[in-house]
């Protein structure tokens, strides 16, 4: 990212929303906030993940998910959940008009999907409210 790139919101506020998510959900170990074009905005982690890499992956996967929905005539907005054998990855849209973002939550396989979704949605709402 370059200096010409607009910095959206206060990174400190974003980070506090991400940290709160980790506190709310012990099974979540990393969370990354990214721009929809794949640049990392903020992150919080108990366990290190390659945040810049995850930011790019998250933007791609969410865009492909949205493309699939459009193709099926089911709107163009949604979330992506990947349930792996050793963990879960949840990608949520953060629909800010100023700069749409993607929230990526990495959690253990013991995370209950409903709790993960709920906590992540809380986090998205906090980020939106901070704007």
């Amino acid at each position, binding site marked *: 990212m370059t200096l010409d790139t607009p910095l959206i919101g206060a990174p400190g506020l974003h980070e506090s929303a991400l940290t709160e998510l980790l506190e709310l959900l012990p099974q979540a170990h990393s969370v990354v906030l990214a721009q929809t074009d794949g640049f990392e905005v903020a992150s919080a982690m108990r366990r290190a993940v390659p945040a810049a*890499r995850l930011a790019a992956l998250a933007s791609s996967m969410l865009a492909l998910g949205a493309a699939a929905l459009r193709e099926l005539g089911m709107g163009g907005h949604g979330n992506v959940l990947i349930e792996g054998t050793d963990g879960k990855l949840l990608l949520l849209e953060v629909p800010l008009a100023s700069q749409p973002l993607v929230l990526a939550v990495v959690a253990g396989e013991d995370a209950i999907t409903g709790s993960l979704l709920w906590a992540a949605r809380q986090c998205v709402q906090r980020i939106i409210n901070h704007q």
Partner: protein
Amino acid sequence: MSREYKLLFAGPMGAGKTTAIAAISDSAPISTEARNTDIAQHSKAQTTVGFDYGEVALEGGDRLRLYGMPGQSRFDFIWKVASAGALGVVMLADNSRPDPLADLSACIDAFTELAAAHAMVVGVGRGGEGRLGIDDYGEWLAARGHVAPVFSVDVRRRDDVLLLIDALLNQIETRELLAGTTESRA
């Protein structure tokens, strides 16, 4: 006997991969454009973050399945995934960039395996807007061991994109004939 060709469009951001696929696809391509914030790199409003997907039915029943890659190397995982099963790559360059060969260099290496095993053509856009000529691209490619025909194109024009596709399909066919792999035809 009809056949499906999976082909990739690769090259730096803004070279025209998304435009090229839209120019020839039979129906509106599947697109994964996101708002571009990297204005320093390129001033366009939208950038591909997943891949473009388009299809073309050729006379005789053959079909093209076209995948447009993101240009930025942070999306190189898409390059790897999409390369599986691809039969050729159209590498696009933008001659109006300050250093078009450096831009090309940043993504061509990821497709050399595909190019070597199957086929590659290079399309140079905005040929009149830079100081390099087509020959400079040819020499640069040859010096790096790439065997690829180079064309000056405007990918907004359907015929120019079809010319690239034609050259690519010819190369695929020639190589297969030489390798005696005609039995792999479906």
